[in-house]
């Protein structure tokens, strides 16, 4: 059994409990359910709201560098701090925050394996509703590292050239075009289906039932052997609005160690609404992870 390509980016719940009082360790909770932090959080953590704080509120875009600096500095985080992210739904939106931190060049970012569910399920791990006192700091971000981000122009070139791995991490029904978005979602596209040549690997394939990541061997079997991701090629992951794919981006880049992995945050809501771009439906021409793991 082999280990993850990067072992320092994952920390255990026990590690967090031991270090949660360290001044240079900053715990950040990001949840799908934006009320979860207020219901109870790890003492000393700050909570970011993905809807109102982690994206530009006017353009459809990631936070600008200035807004990122304001948010992170306001949370009392300095560039030299160790940021430990955790959240609900297997760290789904925690992974999106991880991607943002890396995009703006934060050096030491880690993820709490298992997320808030694992912390919640362990009797010795405390939760509180007490607000965390924050001392704002001046935070200077680096310029956005655009090698971590794919734009629609990049994706269209990739479709034409066929020289990348494309990983679609949405549910099977979204991939095949049976549904455009999960029921009840307001962010949707005009058409259903997937980007031609994409492999379907639903994002939650990467985690075990307790929310922790699967072993390196299992992940390799799913992405490389099952879905046909070629470790020698650059990779782009996408989903519906770019959050679920951050989770897969994290797995491919940090746990499996692929050199060149980008998150296409425009994702299906952008691609599936463009006029005249090629779309595939059904599973006929797609490599999917399911037959190989069945």
């Amino acid at each position, binding site marked *: 059994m082999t280990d993850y390509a990067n072992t320092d980016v994952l920390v255990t719940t026990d590690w967090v409990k031991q270090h949660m009082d360290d001044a240079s360790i900053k715990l950040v909770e990001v949840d799908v359910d934006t009320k979860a932090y207020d*219901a109870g959080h790890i003492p000393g953590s700050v909570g970011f709201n993905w809807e109102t704080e982690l994206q530009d509120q006017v353009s459809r875009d990631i936070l600008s560098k200035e807004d990122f600096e304001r948010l992170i500095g306001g949370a009392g985080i300095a560039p030299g701090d160790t940021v430990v992210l955790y959240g609900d*739904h*297997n760290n789904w939106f925690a992974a999106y925050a991880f991607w943002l931190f890396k995009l703006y060049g934060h050096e030491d970012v880690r993820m709490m394996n298992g997320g*808030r*569910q694992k912390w919640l399920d362990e009797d010795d791990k405390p939760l509180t509703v007490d607000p965390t006192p924050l001392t704002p700091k001046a935070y200077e971000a680096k310029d956005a590292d655009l090698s971590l981000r794919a734009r629609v122009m990049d994706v269209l070139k990739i479709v034409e050239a066929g020289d990348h791995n494309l990983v679609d991490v949405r549910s099977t029904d979204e991939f095949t075009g049976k549904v455009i978005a*999960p029921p009840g*979602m307001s962010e949707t596209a005009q058409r259903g289906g997937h980007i031609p040549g994409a492999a379907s690997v*639903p994002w939650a394939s990467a985690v075990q039932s307790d*929310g922790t990541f699967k072993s390196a061997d299992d992940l390799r079997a799913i992405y490389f052997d099952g879905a046909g991701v070629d470790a020698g090629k650059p990779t782009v992951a996408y989903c519906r609005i770019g959050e679920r794919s951050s989770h897969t981006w994290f797995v491919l880049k940090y746990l499996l160690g692929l050199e060149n992995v980008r998150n296409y945050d425009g994702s299906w809501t952008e691609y599936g609404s463009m006029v005249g771009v090629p779309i595939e439906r059904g599973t006929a021409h797609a490599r999917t992870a399911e037959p190989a793991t069945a």
Partner: protein
Amino acid sequence: MDRDTRVYDDIFQLLPSEENPTPLVRINALAPAAGFDLFAKLEWMNPFGSVKDRAASFLIRSLEAQGKLSGERGMVEPTSGNTGLSLAVMASAKGYPMRAVVPDKVPLTKKALLKMAGAELDVINDNLCPAPGLGEGSIAIAKTHAKAQPDRYAMPNQYENTENTRAHEETTGPEIWRQTGGKITHFFASLGTAGTIVGTGRYLKRKNPDIKVIVVVPDEGHDVPGLRTPAELATTNLFEEDLVDEIVEVEGELAFRTALELIRKEGLLAGPSSGLIFEGARRVLSRDPDAVRGGVGVALFCDDAFKYVDSFIKHVPELAEDTAP
């Protein structure tokens, strides 16, 4: 309290027990097998309206016995259904706060019903994306409240608390045994938290190991409120497969059609879960009528039709026809 004249000092005295059982009513026009007595156990005759009164009352009693409830310290529970309603009414009557964590997708009428019963609602986005293997989001939020503010909230936790099964072991089981004079041969129920089937099944099997305990489940993708398929049972850890002789799968759609048959032919105002259970019982008993001749069956009818009129209309569209001048 005088049970003969049915005069009670408070509503809690109506809670069921061996001495005060919910009624058994014989199925006549729809009897599935000649010479077999099938009875419906009318759980909607419970004081707060459903089978869930049993588990809810035991859960509250247990928290009270541990000194965990007061005017300041109430309950938090992930529930949108009958357990929540039952807990909320009892909590209100006893002066305990009650916070119900409900997924946003729950219909407005159910949310309003909880508020009518005095509960505070915590509505969450539960279902943003399928995340296989994880507990439901509302369960996690309820646990979070209980862990972060133990001085304000105790969590009954119907999915894990063995008081749930104990309620049925100490009430439902003994009631049925006594009401059938020990002659019961078949027990039919469904799965929600698994409390009914495990508690009742355990008691009945102890009395007579030959009694058949039969679980009726809806098929995948069903829309029968409160019920789970075996695959959905990951949310409860009360289920004990050894107690079950047979699992019968019935198309969820039939829950509604069969309930209407019960209403129209037996005068039993059955809700969809009761319809599903009856349909399962009918299939099992009509398979080989000679083999069950002389037997006595009890089908547990969880709730009546009134809370589910919208579901009935959705699944039986003709109910909405000819309803305007």
